[in-house]
């Protein structure tokens, strides 16, 4: 497996991407749009993109990812896609009857330069229904950029302010995470007694139950009226700079709701920061229940540290996830040896390097806009004890015989993960369990007969 990759260090790979750690914008936009209740995402381009994005989302979530397409053929590509979009809007409302259509572009309609706001204005939109849009050119950024762009679109089209004073309610932009993570963040905030509006919210949409009746628009998702009302909230927490910060900034400009940027709440420190932000923002006390949860994590970290402390780890994936995860790994006493994301943004390297420096960790390699070929070459030079990232890492894991803990997107070869959190204190426990058990399984597997032990 991967025998074709060269042995020594390679400095010839500078152009293009080999084995990417990112994909294109519309996928993220589609995922964000699925987090609005009653929304049908619509891909403005040729139908292949839409098919690909639905396929990729469906594989990860093992749940339907519905979306329609403008189905361009050569004609639309030459003369523009206005006709296709107008027809689509008409057909979609007639046949699938969503409350809202969230249109995103593909690199095709972007290259042609279709002017979506104008086309949407000229379209027939039934009374009480909405059509919103986001530009998601695939030749810039990644699926995380697309997610962020659709979040911005949702805010610009839907959020409104009724003026001051603001209500005692909190907005949460959750970032590109699983429904299980969103549910966990909501639970923590509810535990603190603060009413919240989360969007996008894919709980009960991308992990919907099997009740024998198929609902094209499952019960979950952020309601349009709630999104509208987010303009009246007292505070917004933007989880993950890459996926949420810009939408929060727009909401602040548009409706005067202050936005606080935070890391994704993965790990103790980042979860603490989330709780502190709610505490400070609303002047509430942290309930004992959360303190107990936190204490359980600390207890577990102390009980298990010898499973993983001092082990080297390579982390790859989306920037928001990787940043928070790296922080947690450092607090576990692990050594993030290679940290890499496919998405652009120079801040990434700076943030990670500062964290490493503060922890006194030397000799690590950090890269934004990297790929798995880069990571593999680094590992070939000097290996690590553990890999953490999405399913695409399994090839390196096998080629170099390194255990892999699957975290992030996409995970296409394991089940149940979309329902389980890596966020919050419960997420900490889950991550510790995965890391510890993976390393212990490895130890058991490699142990000589005389070293094989019952208690570890």
């Amino acid at each position, binding site marked *: *497996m*991967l*025998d*074709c*990759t060269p042995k020594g260090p*390679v400095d*010839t*790979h500078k*152009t*293009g*991407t*080999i*084995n*990417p750690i*990112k*994909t*294109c914008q*519309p*996928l993220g936009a589609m995922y964000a749009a699925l987090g609005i209740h009653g929304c049908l995402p619509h891909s403005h*381009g*040729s*139908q*292949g993109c839409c*098919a*690909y994005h639905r*396929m990729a989302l*469906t*594989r990860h979530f*093992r749940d*339907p*990812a519905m979306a*329609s*397409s*403008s*189905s*361009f*053929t*050569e004609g639309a*590509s030459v003369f523009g896609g206005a006709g296709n979009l107008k*027809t*689509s*809007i*008409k*057909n979609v409302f*007639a*046949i699938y009857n969503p409350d809202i259509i969230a249109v995103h572009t*593909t*690199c*095709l309609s*972007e*290259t*042609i330069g279709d002017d979506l706001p104008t086309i949407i204005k000229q379209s027939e939109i039934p009374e009480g229904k909405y059509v919103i849009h986001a530009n998601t050119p*695939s*030749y*810039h950024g990644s699926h995380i950029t697309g997610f962020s762009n659709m979040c911005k679109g949702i805010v610009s089209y839907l959020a409104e302010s009724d003026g001051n004073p603001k209500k005692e309610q909190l907005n949460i932009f959750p970032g590109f995470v699983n429904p299980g993570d969103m549910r966990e963040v909501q639970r923590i905030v509810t535990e603190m007694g603060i009413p919240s509006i989360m969007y996008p919210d894919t709980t009960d949409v991308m992990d919907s139950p099997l*009740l*024998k009746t*198929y609902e094209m628009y499952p019960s979950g998702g952020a309601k349009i009226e709630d999104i509208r009302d987010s303009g009246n909230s007292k505070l917004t927490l933007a989880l993950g700079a890459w996926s949420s910060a810009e939408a929060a900034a727009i909401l602040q400009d548009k409706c005067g709701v202050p936005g606080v940027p935070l890391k994704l709440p993965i790990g103790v420190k980042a979860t603490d920061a989330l709780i502190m932000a709610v505490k400070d923002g609303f002047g509430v006390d942290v309930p004992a229940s959360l303190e107990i949860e936190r204490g359980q994590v600390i207890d577990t970290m102390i009980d298990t540290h010898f499973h993983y402390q001092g082990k080297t780890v390579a982390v790859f994936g989306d920037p928001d996830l990787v940043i928070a995860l790296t922080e947690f790994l450092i607090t576990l006493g692990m050594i993030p040896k290679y940290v890499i994301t496919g998405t652009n943004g120079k801040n990434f390297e700076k943030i990670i390097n500062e964290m490493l420096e503060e922890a006194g960790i030397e000799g690590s390699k950090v890269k934004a806009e990297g790929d798995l070929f880069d990571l593999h070459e680094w590992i070939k030079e000097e290996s690590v004890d553990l890999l953490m990232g999405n399913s*695409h890492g399994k*090839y390196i894991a096998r080629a170099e015989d390194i255990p892999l803990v699957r975290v992030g997107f996409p995970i296409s070869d394991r089940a149940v993960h979309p329902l389980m959190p890596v966020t919050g204190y419960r997420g900490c426990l889950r991550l510790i369990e995965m890391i510890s058990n993976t390393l212990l399984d490895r130890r058991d597997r490699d142990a000589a007969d005389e070293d094989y032990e019952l208690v570890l």
Partner: protein
Amino acid sequence: MTVTDLNVDDMMTPYPNKVLKNRKKHIVAKTDGAASCPQIEANTRTVPGIISQRGCCYAGCKGVVVGPIKDMITITHGPIGCGYYSWGTRRNKARADDRTPPEHIFSAMCFSTDMQESDIVFGGEKKLAKMIDEVVEIFHPRAINICSTCPIGLIGDDLGAVSKAAEEKHGIPIIHYNCEGYKGVSQSAGHHIANNQIMEKMVGTGTDGPAGDRVINILGEYNIGGDGWEIERILEDIGYTVNSILTGDSAYANIKNLHSANLNLVQCHRSINYIAEMMETKYGIPWLKVNFIGVEATIATLRDVAQCFGDEDLIAQTEVVIERELAAITPELERYRSICKGKTAFTFVGGSRSHHYQYLLKDLGMEVVVAGYEFAHRDDYEGRDVIPTIKSDADSKNIPELHLEADPDMYEEPNLHLNMSKEKYDELVEAGHFATYDGMYPDMVDGGVMIDDPNHYETEELIEIFHPDLIFSGIRDKYISHKMGVPSKQLHSYDYSGPYAGFRGSIIFAKDVANALSTPAWQMITPPWDKTETEGGD
């Protein structure tokens, strides 16, 4: 429920008039006594806004046909997404062999020029050329494919020129495919473009194909889950030499020798019939439509292939292998058959599987009541006889046709390829043996429905009307049917099982289907507190 009760107009009530008129033409029911297949509309544009399961030209070219060639580096020229989605997702298994060492297997990798905004503005030719230089230096491949995506056609990058220059510089074949996603109306356009280039740039350039007089190519077999290997095993047991499988587990090193075969077998008609036809024109190699999916289908196919050579020993050895294989699988197959018998199914897949799997399901005592193709042409439903009557439209005219002639040096009469007298060969032709395909229609049950480019709305309606016991589809509708309480199996990826082809494959398929039908969770959907006394179970 049979089709006589199916009222298409009723089913499509929410459709705006234009959509209704369009979609009705894509649905054909098989009714008692209809002598031949009524015309079905196929290979035409998808209605904008309709949730279709179709992919695009690039997906057909790179994703299906050329991507699996294991010893070629395939660079997707475009933004990152297209290359990413077609990376490792079709399960085309490949392994090293005496011609292709492990260091030459690139099919588990993803190469993309990852076009950025400035490349779109200033053109991507330089970037592509540079990436080719780099991958040649790092990987030393035997040959390279370049597949283009949507924006490339629009910005007008000249892939031909870049490939030619790189070919001269590096001395290896660099083959480009103008398979921008918007071409044609579906994956089908991409299959055709790939076929053309493989035929023009690869086939016939090799001189080290296997010798012998029973050398076979298996065309349109992608080795999903190892299907190709099971087919190869059976054929080699009988005494054939398999030259190349196109393109499952195939290597450039073998494809260039495709012309050294005596006979071409066509498994997937939709994706590869072009090459079969072109090879017949250019080299005189006859082709036979086969089907290795299903026990009875495999047996019939093996007998057909043996007839092509007409050699008595071969015919006898064929029967020996059939008998041996049957003995090995029959008891187990019977066990699963008892679970599957009497159940009904839908098959919704690409261009040939919806037909092929009807045979295997028949073996299990199941009936296919609705069958749909995502991107077939009329001939896939109605049979090849209709090909001359298919009118080309603006979308199909954009796909280049190769008009080949007999190669002055390499052409041989078909009967000579088969070591057979002209009379005997003509007899077989007369009997409809070679170069024919009757399409799906004859195998549909009475009251069954064929539906072209089936979409989400229609699928949901049809499930409610027919209540099938099982749906065979792709990933995008798989979980929808689950939510409706109907089990499903993916026929693109086999739900990561397989092989499903040949004798051994049929057992694996039967087990998977029986498990899908009988997994205990289906009985547990209704919670006990919602059960009425009479209901008792679900």
